[in-house]
């Protein structure tokens, strides 16, 4: 009986990585490549990779987080906010994403405070 249970666990675990695991693996590769180029200052290439990653796996919070950082670095603050919000929607308890978002908001609030009375 115990043997059967163990076998079941193994089968469930190994097959619980269905097609989505492949997608996640591919997305992870894109994200990792994006990180390596971002570290060398190639932010546009990094953004391209992270955008690919979220296309491949739209449930990958880390990819949205990294993409948000990339957008932030490029000054695309609206896109950055949306990407952070999506990352937090996927992983609401992720401390690092939350911290990144808080830092972003600090700058973004600075940008949007004040009232322009002429367009």
């Amino acid at each position, binding site marked *: 009986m115990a043997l059967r249970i163990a076998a079941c*666990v193994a089968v469930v675990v190994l097959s619980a990585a269905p097609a989505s695991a492949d997608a996640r693996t591919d997305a992870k590769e894109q994200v990792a490549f994006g990180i390596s180029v971002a570290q060398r200052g190639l932010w546009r290439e990094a953004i391209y990779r992270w955008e690919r990653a979220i296309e491949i796996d739209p449930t990958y919070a880390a990819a949205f*987080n*990294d993409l948000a*950082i990339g957008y*932030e670095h490029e000054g695309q603050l609206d896109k950055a906010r949306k990407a952070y919000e999506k990352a937090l929607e996927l992983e609401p308890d992720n401390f690092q994403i939350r911290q990144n978002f808080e830092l972003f908001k600090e700058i973004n609030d600075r940008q949007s*405070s*004040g009232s322009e*009375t002429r367009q």
Partner: protein
Amino acid sequence: MTVRVPAAKHANSLALVSMAAVLAAVAVACGPSYFEIPIETPIRAKMDVSPFQRVLVAGFVAGGTDDVDTNLETVRLLRSQLRSKSSLRVIDADVMPLVEIAKDQSRPAGEASEGSAAGGPDGGGNAPRASGDATALPTVIREERDLEPYERLFANTAYWKAIGEEFQNPLIVTGTVLFAPKTSNTIVQRDQEVFDSFGRRRTVPQRTFMERKGFRLHPKFVFIDGRTGTTIYSEGYIEEILYPAQQNTPALSSYFELMDRLVPNFLSALSSQKIRGTRVLLN
């Protein structure tokens, strides 16, 4: 010779193997893959200052404390910041006593003090008046509501246009600044060191009533187009600082400490900036 492994033992090792596989999969999937990375966020200027080559930090309606000449210090500080951190040429002119100017403008035309130094930046006294609004202005400014009646000064486009013409149509920076003392009485929890009869040290949280004193700074910066006299943009901020009651901090140093927090915001209205920071990339 073969040894028969008991079925239960065999099942246990299989369970262990499958557990190890699970843990390995989890470790690969959720490995500690994070990378701190420095970023520079470009912040666009909030206003288009391209039509202007020069900037006049005219003066401020200021109040709150008598310990600091808030109008003079704010003008000095902003001029020096603009000189070093913006492309606009800063006009050196006398600081305008806007409280006096506003009072002068609110008087009926017949009562205007002849040769009043309050009329214009050069003390000419011939600047356009606000249109017939004779609401009394508070003589002493101690809090925000005392500043409100002065706001109409910034809507007097004819007056600011005249100032603009006098200085060849610069961007005009003006506004209100309240720098007022603030006290706060709060319960603070602190760890107190105590020793028991054996000499062992331990800390005990202790709640104490604490009086703190400090200052509150509430500036509102108003940016006026010197060509038309109209307000282009305005923004307000509030900052405060509190010290233990026994600490004696000069008002002027508190003022500069608080302004130091606000100056980047002020500058970001006029010029593009890059804000340096650090973020965490995840994999």
